[in-house]
C-alpha cells in the first residue's frame, strides 16, 4: 500500500521490540505505528521510548493508528505528541491523503525542524519569523513553535507576547497553556493559576493545564491542592508513568498513604514494558502498604499486608538482577510481617538480609535507610540509631541523604503518630508564645508520647521547662529539661539540631550548678522552633 504512494524504502516490524531495534540503527522519515501491538509494548510506549532515547527527530513523522477510542488511550498517546493520530477504520485513500498533507508540511518546515534538532534555537527562531513573513499556511504552527522556542531560550517576554497576541483574536488552548507556563516561570502565580483554570474551563481534557495548576500550587506551598490537581490529570490520562510517580511522592508529602499507594500501583502497572520501568514503583507501593497496614489486624489491614508482600515479590521477580532492589524488598517485607505481629518471620527476613550483606555487596544509601527503618520497626532502636549515626558521618556531604537520615532518626514512627506529634508541637508553640508555659509543657510532652526521639520537639520542651524553672526555681522543671535532653544526646554532629542541643545542655548544666545560689540572667534564647 505504501509503496504505491512512492515510498522508496519500506521496512516492516512485526512487534515492538523489532521496531525499536530497527530505530536503534536507522532513522526513518515516517513511522506508522499501531497502538495495539499485542503482548509487550504498545504504540504509546514505542513513541515514549523513541522520544526518551532521542531516536525521533523533529524532521521525522510519527503517525499513530488506532482502533482505540477509550479516553485514557487517546489522551495518553497524545501526550507524547505523535505528528498525527488516525482512528481506524482507515482506508487506503484516507491514509494517502493524510500522509500527503503531513509530508508536505514536514517538507515546508524541514529547515526549522532541523535547527531544533541541532538545538540551534536562535536560528530556528529566525527561520520561524521568515516563514511567518512568507504568509504560508503554516503560520499557526510557526507561532506555536516560536512560543516554545522562546521559553527554551529563556526569553519569557517574547514568549508571553507571542501567546498574548494569539489569544487576542481567539481562545486557543496552546496559547493559553503557553501563557500559563510563562507566568509560572515569571513567578506570577496568581495569574498563572487563572490562566490554567481558564484553559480547563474551555476544555476539561487539557491534561497539561492540570499539570501547570499543580506546579503553580506547589510553588505557593499548597501541596494538598497540588495533589488534587495531579489526581485530576491522572484520572484523565493514567498511562503517563512519570506523572503517577510524581503524584505518589506528593501524596506521601501530604501523609496520604492511600493515594500514594494507588499512584505507585498505577505507575507499576503502566511502567511494565515501558522505558521508564524501574523497581521503585513496586517498592514504594510495598512501603506505603507496609506502613498503612502496620498494627492493623483487621481484615482490611491483613489484605493490605498481603498486597504489600505480593507487590514486593513481584519486584524481586521482575528485577532479580537489581541486588539493592531485592534487598529493599526483603527489608520491607520484614516490616510488613512485624506490623502484622509475625515477629519471628520478620526477624528471619532481617537475619537473611544481614547474611547477604556480608558478601561484598555494594549497598546504596536507600538500602541502608530501609535497613534502619526495619530495625526500628522490629524494635531494635539502638542498632537503628547506631547505623544512622554511622551513615551521617559517611554521607556528611550529601544534604538530601542527611535530611532523610535526620527525619528517620527523629520520627521512626508511622504517619499517624507524626501527624499527631506535629499538631501537638504547634499548639505547644502557640501556648508558649501566649505565656501559658505549664500548658505548653503538657502539649510538648503529649507530642513526645507519639515521637519520643524527635530532636526539635525534645529541645522545645527543654526550653520551656528551663524558662519555667527560671521563674519558679522548682527542681521538678529542671528534671523535665534534663530528661528531655537525654532523649536527644545521641544525635550526630551533622544533625540540624546539634548546635541547639549543646547550647541547651550548657544552659541546663549552668542552672543545675547555680540553681540554689542566684537566678541566672535571661540569655534571651529564641522561642521554640517548629519541628
Amino acid at each position, binding site marked *: 500500500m505504501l509503496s504505491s504512494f512512492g515510498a522508496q524504502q519500506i521496512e516492516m516490524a512485526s512487534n515492538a521490540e523489532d521496531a525499536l531495534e530497527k530505530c536503534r540503527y536507522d532513522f526513518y522519515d515516517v513511522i506508522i505505528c499501531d497502538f495495539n501491538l499485542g503482548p509487550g509494548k504498545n504504540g504509546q510506549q514505542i513513541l515514549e521510548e523513541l522520544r526518551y532515547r532521542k531516536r525521533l527527530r523533529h524532521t521525522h513523522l510519527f503517525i499513530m493508528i488506532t482502533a482505540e477510542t477509550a479516553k485514557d488511550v487517546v489522551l495518553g498517546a497524545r501526550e507524547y505528541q505523535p505528528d498525527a493520530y488516525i482512528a481506524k477504520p482507515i*482506508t487506503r485513500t484516507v491514509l494517502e*491523503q*493524510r500522509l500527503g498533507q503531513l509530508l508536505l508540511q514536514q517538507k515546508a518546515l524541514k529547515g526549522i525542524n532541523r535547527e531544533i534538532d541541532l538545538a540551534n534555537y536562535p536560528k530556528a527562531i529566525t527561520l520561524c519569523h521568515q516563514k511567518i513573513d512568507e504568509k504560508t499556511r503554516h503560520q*499557526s504552527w510557526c507561532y506555536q513553535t516560536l512560543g516554545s522556542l522562546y521559553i527554551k531560550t529563556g526569553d519569557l517576554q517574547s514568549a508571553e507576547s507571542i501567546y498574548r497576541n494569539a489569544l487576542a483574536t481567539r481562545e486557543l*488552548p496552546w496559547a493559553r497553556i503557553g501563557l500559563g507556563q510563562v507566568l509560572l516561570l515569571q513567578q506570577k502565580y496568581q495569574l498563572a493559576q487563572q490562566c490554567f483554570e481558564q484553559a480547563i474551563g474551555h476544555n476539561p481534557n487539557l491534561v497539561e493545564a492540570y499539570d501547570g495548576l499543580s506546579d503553580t500550587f506547589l510553588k505557593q506551598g499548597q501541596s494538598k491542592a497540588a495533589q488534587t490537581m495531579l489526581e485530576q490529570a491522572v484520572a484523565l490520562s493514567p498511562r503517563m508513568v512519570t506523572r503517577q510517580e510524581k503524584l505518589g511522592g506528593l501524596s506521601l508529602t501530604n501523609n496520604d498513604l492511600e493515594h500514594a499507594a494507588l499512584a505507585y500501583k498505577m505507575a507499576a502497572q503502566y511502567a511494565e514494558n515501558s522505558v521508564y520501568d524501574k523497581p521503585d514503583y513496586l517498592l514504594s507501593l510495598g512501603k506505603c502498604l507496609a506502613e498503612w497496614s502496620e498494627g492493623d489486624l483487621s481484615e482490611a489491614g491483613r489484605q493490605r499486608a498481603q498486597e504489600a508482600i505480593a507487590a514486593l515479590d513481584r519486584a524481586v521477580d521482575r528485577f532479580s538482577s537489581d541486588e539493592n532492589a531485592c534487598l529493599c524488598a526483603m527489608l520491607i517485607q520484614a516490616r510488613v510481617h512485624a506490623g502484622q505481629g509475625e515477629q519471628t518471620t520478620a526477624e528471619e527476613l532481617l537475619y537473611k538480609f544481614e547474611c547477604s550483606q556480608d558478601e561484598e555487596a555494594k549497598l546504596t544509601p536507600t538500602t541502608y535507610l530501609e535497613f534502619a527503618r526495619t530495625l526500628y520497626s522490629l524494635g531494635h532502636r539502638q542498632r537503628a540509631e547506631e547505623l544512622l549515626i554511622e551513615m551521617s558521618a559517611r554521607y556528611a556531604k550529601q544534604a538530601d541523604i542527611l535530611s532523610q537520615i535526620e527525619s528517620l532518626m527523629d520520627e521512626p514512627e508511622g504517619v499517624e503518630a507524626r501527624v499527631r506529634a506535629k499538631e501537638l508541637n504547634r499548639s505547644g508553640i502557640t501556648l508558649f508564645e501566649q505565656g501559658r508555659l505549664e500548658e505548653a509543657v503538657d502539649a510538648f510532652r503529649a507530642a513526645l508520647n507519639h515521637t519520643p526521639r524527635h530532636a526539635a520537639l525534645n529541645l522545645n520542651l527543654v526550653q520551656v521547662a528551663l524558662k519555667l524553672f527560671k521563674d519558679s526555681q522548682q527542681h521538678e522543671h529542671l528534671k523535665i529539661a534534663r530528661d528531655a535532653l537525654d532523649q536527644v544526646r545521641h544525635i550526630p554532629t551533622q544533625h540540624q539540631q546539634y548546635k541547639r542541643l549543646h547550647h541547651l545542655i550548657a544552659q541546663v548544666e549552668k542552672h543545675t550548678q547555680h540553681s540554689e545560689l542566684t537566678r541566672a540572667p535571661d540569655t534571651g534564647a529564641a522561642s521554640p522552633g517548629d519541628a
Partner: protein
Amino acid sequence: MNDKPDFTFIIASSVHDMKNSLGMLIHSVDELCERLPPELKDALNVSTIQYEAQRVNNDLIQLLGLYRLHNEMFNLSIDEHHVTDIFQEQLAHYRDTLASRSVTLQYDCDEELTGYFDREIVIGVLNNALNNATRYTRSQILLVASACEGGVLLEVHDDGQGYPEQLLKTEPGKALRGIDFHTGSTNLGLYFASRVAELHQQGDKKGNVTIRNGGRLGGGVFSVYLP
C-alpha cells in the same frame, strides 16, 4: 444510589461495541475488495456494502456523540485546520463509492482558507451530510467553503430534489421532534450536526446548521457555520 442500571449507559456501551465491530468489518471488507478484480467488484455490488456500512458507522458515531452531549461529557478539541485538507480527505474517502454510482464530487475552496474547529467531529458531520447527499443527488455533489463573519461556512450542495418542504420548516436544533415513522427518517443527523455546531463558540458567536434548497446545483444545500 439507585441499583437499577442506567439504560442510556447500557445502550451507549452496546453502541460503542457495535461501532468497534463494524469498524473491523469495514476494514475487512476493504481489504477483501483490494484483492477483487474490478469486474467482480461491480458484480458483487461492493460499493453498496461499503456505503451502507459507512452509513451505519456514521449513525453509531452520532449516537455516541449524542450520548456524550446528553451527559455533558462532550469536549471539543478545537484547533486551526485548512478546509481544503478536510475536503480532500472527504474526496478520497467517498471517491470509490460515488464513482460506482456515477456521481461526481468536487470542491470549491480557497487553498488558504482556515477554520477553527474540532477536526474529527466536523468531519463526522460532513460525512453524514455527504452520505445523505449521496443518497438523494442525481449526478453531482459540490463542497463549498467560504470565510464568514470571522469563521467559516461549509456547505454540501447536490442536484437532487432538495429537502422536503416540511423539513425546511423545522429548526435543525429541534429536528428530533419530527420523527417520521413512515419514511424511517429520524433527522438524527441534522439534530446532531446542529448540536455540535452550537458547541463551537467564539466570543458571542455560536455555530449553527441550516438547510435550504437551490444553491449552486439546484438541489439541497446543507450548511454549517463555525465561528
